[in-house]
Structure formats: structure tokens, C-alpha cells
């Protein structure tokens, strides 16, 4: 699979070196040859997009800002999104070259695309990532990256087996304030880590429990405007309602992994990172606060004794996505606002992060991915790290749904002695989809 990417660049380099392209200078712009400060095609990562809505557009802006990325094509089930992204890319490059597709198989068939940015709804994330990897391309995929424990494992296995690069859209691993907190945690300045707190939810915006409701049926738009069947993808069929495609699909069981996955996919991921437990998951999950609209917590424990608490309240109000890491010698807490609070003995540490730097996490994360596409090294939010953090979140949500303490075996991705919990590790995909 790596061969394909290298072959495209090698072919371009060889052609330029042999002068075959220079023989036709009247049709080759200088930028294509790497002159005028432009990155030559042989050093560019060619990118396409799958399902880019609001968040996907913002991530794409970070990609377009990279001088060595060339965006070639957009695939979306919604015509409005296809046209919006094409307009954005064409305006950036001053041409009309961005291709549009409504069928992802046409995009996967293109051999000149190195990597794909996936930002559909959650229901498609793991499946599209896996199928994109099988088509020989690397993947940057928004979070939450999976709907189930089984999808999480299939994702990691696929990318390991195929040798493709995967970056989960958990950009806080490349956020300066979170990285600084990570340094404190890993350097030993907090002492031995005891308890890691991860903000999940928030419950008032994204309740942990999902709904099985259907909205009333509305007439389906023409397929070329919105392909409803393809929008549903592997999810169970339900009648069309425009609310779903306007972004209000969160909170429905068929489309969403639950509120814990929203911030948890970021914050639990950060906790696994600092705890040096990226290749495993907690072995115990005990939910508390099960009533609707009440604060909730899932108390978890790793096999080595380290504790993890997923909760939606009780942080210091530093922004969204709080983490708080407590060791036997001190603690650190930070969130999206960028400010870092620490216990008294650590106040002399270098903690300031400029607000602009704190907001640069996505750009840093995109850069990390592009560099790894070229180097074939693993990015910070690689498939295994994302898989394990998502498994921890899914297991916590299953414990929450069942309302009881669960014991989990990370070696087999199975719950110990709980048949109902084990049944909830996967969901049947609608035909013809499968992983």
C-alpha cells in the first residue's frame, strides 16, 4: 500500500529529472515544478474529502493552509455540500479542478489521491475509514471514530494490517496546553499518577443516553439533492426527516454513540495518553448519577490500579473538554480555554500558552498527519490509540445503559460474566455494508 503513494511521487520526480515535463514548458506552470516557492507535486500529499459539513470544512481549511497539500475531490451525499466544498477548493487554487462525487467508490477508484479527510456523521466513520484504507489511501477521520467496540477493534486491525496511516480527529493531543499538561504528567512532577479525570458529555448538551425515537416522515428529496439511502449507510432504515441532515442526528441511537463519546473521545484519549495506557482500556466501569439531567460519573479502573473518572460536571470552568490529572505529588487541570491550573507546589512551572496557540490544535494535528503520510511514522492519534480510547468510552456507555458495574477484559474486548453487555459490543450493519 505504501508503494502506491511512493510510486506516484517517484514517477513525478523521475519525469521532472528526465526533463520529460520540461519539454512542454508552455503548459506546465512554474508552481508545478516547485518554482516560486511552491511545493512540487512530487512532495505534495493529494487529498480528498468524504462528507464535509461544518466541522469538516474547518478541518479542510487547516489542510488547505498546508503548502504541501493539494485537495482534489469531494464526495458527499448532499449536493449543497458538494458544491460548497468545490467552491472553497477552486477559490483556493484559482481553477475549476476540484472533482465532485456522490458515490464514494468513484473517489476510491482514483489512484492519484493519497489521503482522505472523513467528516461524515458518526455512523459512517469506522466503515468509511476501513474501506478507504482498503482502497490504498491514508485517513484523517473526525471523532467519534466508531459506533461500537467491534468497530473500534476492526479499525485498528485494518490499519495495522494494511500499513496505512490513520489520524483520529482528536486534535487536543496536538494542543499546546494539553501537551504541556501531558509533559507535567509524564515527567513525574505530579508524582505517581493516581486518578485521571475526563470531561464526558456535557450532559446538558449531549445526554449520555441516546433515543430510539423516529422523527415523522417527510417527502424524500431527489436523490441528486440528498441521497437518503446513502446518508443512512450502515444504519437501520428510518423515514426521511430534514432535521437529521441539518445536523440534528446526534442523540439518536442509530446515528450516535452517546454523549460520553462526544467529549470522551477527546478527553479519555488524553487520559490514556498521559497514563501510558494507549494499548489497553480500563477493566472496571461503575456508573453513578443515572437520572436524566443530573450530573453523572463513570468510575473506571485499569489493571495496574490507575483510576479514570468520566464525568460531566465539577471541573474548574476552563472551557470545554476538561482534563484533570492527579498524582501523589500534585495535580494539573486544563481545557479548551488554554489556561492551565496546577496544585500549589507546581505554580512555578512554565504554564502560559498563548490563546492563539491554544486554538491551533487542529492545524498542528493536520500537520502531524501530513508529515506522517510522508514519513510513514505513526501520528499522535493513530488507529490503535483511538481504538482503545473509544473502547473505553463505549464500555462506559454500556455500563451507563445497563446501570450496573461491569468488568471488562481488554485482551478479548469482552465483558466478564455479563451477557447483555457483551451483546451491546456490536450492531448489525444494514446490507450491503460490512466490515
Amino acid at each position, binding site marked *: 500500500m505504501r508503494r502506491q503513494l511512493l510510486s506516484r511521487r517517484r514517477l513525478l520526480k523521475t519525469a521532472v529529472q528526465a526533463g520529460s515535463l520540461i519539454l512542454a514548458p508552455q503548459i506546465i506552470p512554474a508552481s508545478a515544478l516547485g518554482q516560486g516557492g511552491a511545493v512540487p507535486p512530487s512532495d505534495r500529499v493529494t487529498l480528498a474529502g468524504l462528507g464535509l459539513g461544518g466541522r469538516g470544512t474547518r478541518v479542510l481549511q487547516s489542510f488547505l493552509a498546508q503548502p504541501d497539500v493539494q485537495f482534489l475531490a469531494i464526495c458527499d451525499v448532499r449536493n449543497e455540500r458538494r458544491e460548497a466544498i468545490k467552491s472553497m477548493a477552486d477559490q483556493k487554487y484559482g481553477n475549476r479542478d476540484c472533482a465532485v462525487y456522490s458515490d464514494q467508490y468513484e473517489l476510491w477508484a482514483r489512484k492519484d489521491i493519497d489521503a482522505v479527510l472523513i467528516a461524515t456523521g458518526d455512523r459512517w466513520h469506522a466503515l468509511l475509514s476501513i474501506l478507504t484504507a482498503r482502497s490504498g489511501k491514508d485517513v484523517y477521520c473526525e471523532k467519534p471514530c466508531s459506533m461500537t467496540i467491534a468497530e473500534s477493534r476492526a479499525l485498528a486491525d485494518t490499519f495495522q494490517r494494511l500499513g496505512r496511516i490513520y489520524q483520529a480527529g482528536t486534535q487536543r493531543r496536538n494542543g499546546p496546553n494539553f501537551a504541556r499538561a501531558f509533559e507535567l504528567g509524564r515527567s513525574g512532577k505530579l508524582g505517581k499518577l493516581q486518578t485521571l479525570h475526563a470531561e464526558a458529555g456535557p450532559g446538558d448538551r449531549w*445526554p*449520555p*443516553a*441516546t*433515543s*430510539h*425515537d*423516529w*422523527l*415523522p*416522515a417527510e417527502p424524500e428529496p431527489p436523490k441528486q439533492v440528498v441521497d437518503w439511502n446513502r446518508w443512512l449507510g450502515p444504519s*437501520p*432504515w*428510518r423515514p426521511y*426527516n430534514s*432535521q437529521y441532515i441539518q445536523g*440534528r442526528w*446526534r*442523540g*439518536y*441511537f442509530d446515528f*450516535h454513540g452517546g454523549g460520553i463519546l462526544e467529549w470522551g473521545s477527546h478527553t479519555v484519549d488524553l487520559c490514556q495518553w498521559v497514563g501510558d495506557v494507549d494499548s489497553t482500556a480500563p477493566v472496571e466501569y461503575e456508573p453513578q448519577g*443515572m437520572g*436524566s439531567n443530573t450530573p453523572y460519573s463513570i468510575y473506571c479502573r485499569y489493571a495496574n490500579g490507575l483510576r479514570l473518572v468520566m464525568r460531566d460536571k465539577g471541573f474548574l470552568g476552563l472551557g470545554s473538554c476538561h482534563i484533570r490529572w492527579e498524582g501523589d505529588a500534585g495535580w494539573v487541570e486544563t481545557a479548551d480555554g488554554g489556561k492551565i491550573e496546577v496544585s500549589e507546589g507546581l505554580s512555578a512551572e512554565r504554564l502560559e500558552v498563548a490563546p492563539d496557540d491554544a486554538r491551533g490544535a487542529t492545524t498542528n494535528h493536520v500537520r502531524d498527519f501530513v508529515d506522517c503520510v510522508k514519513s510513514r511514522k505513526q501520528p499522535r492519534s493513530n488507529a490503535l490509540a483511538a481504538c482503545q480510547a473509544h473502547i473505553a468510552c463505549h464500555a462506559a456507555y454500556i455500563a*451507563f*445503559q*445497563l*446501570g450496573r458495574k461491569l468488568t471488562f477484559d481488554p485482551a478479548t474486548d469482552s465483558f466478564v460474566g455479563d*451477557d*447483555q453487555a*457483551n*451483546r*451491546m459490543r*456490536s*450492531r*448489525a*450493519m*444494514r*446490507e*450491503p455494508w*460490512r466490515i
Partner: protein
Amino acid sequence: MPQATPQATPIQPMVDERYGSAAQIMALAPARLIAILQDPSASVYAKAKACQRLAVVGDKAAAPALAALLADPQLSHYARFGLEPIPDPSVDEALRAALGKVKGSLLVGVIISIARRRDPKALDALAKLLSDPDSEVAKAADYALARIRPAP
């Protein structure tokens, strides 16, 4: 199972006239859920919710009622959703029996569920489907065989 309204929205969700809301249906005991599947007057909505709940609480008693929906174009996937996680051999028997009863995309779905359950007793039937004139069926059979057969 706790339920929550997903987003603040003025739109009221669907309700089955006889069986109520999704939350009400999914709070029913397994025997009542099976009865919904067998009720000719029950809506697709009620049957879909019953199938999804039986995925968690159903046992072999639910398998025949779920399997009866495998040939229903609107509910076949919901039937598989309910059947796939039930840890009982009767589910495998029902899925194998459906191989000879359903066609096209529904057959593809049944094959996928057999693959997910890794049923070794389906190997011969799946091998025959490799030459099915429907290429999607043949590809699904190939996927299932690769998933079920032990690695060399």
C-alpha cells in the same frame, strides 16, 4: 434503559397508536416484544423497536419471530439486528434456513449475519453461493467464507 430527547426540537417523534413511543416499546418484557413482531396490525415502527430491544434481552424464544421477518424488505435488517447478538444455536439454524428463502439484497444481509456469527455449519451452503448469478450475493458469500474459515 435510560432515554433522552436528543436535541431541543419542536418536532414530536413518532408514536405507535397501539404500542406508544419508542421508550415505551423498549421497556416491554421480551414476551410482549415478541407479540409485537407477531401482530399483523403492528406498525413497522413498533416492530423495528421491538427487534432492536430483543437484540439485548431476547433469547431463543425470540428467534422464530425475528427470523420470520428476514424476508420482509422493510424489516429484514431489523430482524438481523435482533438476531445477531442472541447467543443461541437456534439463531444460526434460522439464518441458514433463510439462505434458501430470501433473494437479492436481503440474502446479502443474511449472509453477512452468518459471517458475523462465524457459523461453521453454513460453509457448504455459502460455498454454493459463490457461483450465484447475483454478483453481490457471490461477493458476500466470499466475505463470509473468508471470515468463517480458520486462517491457514
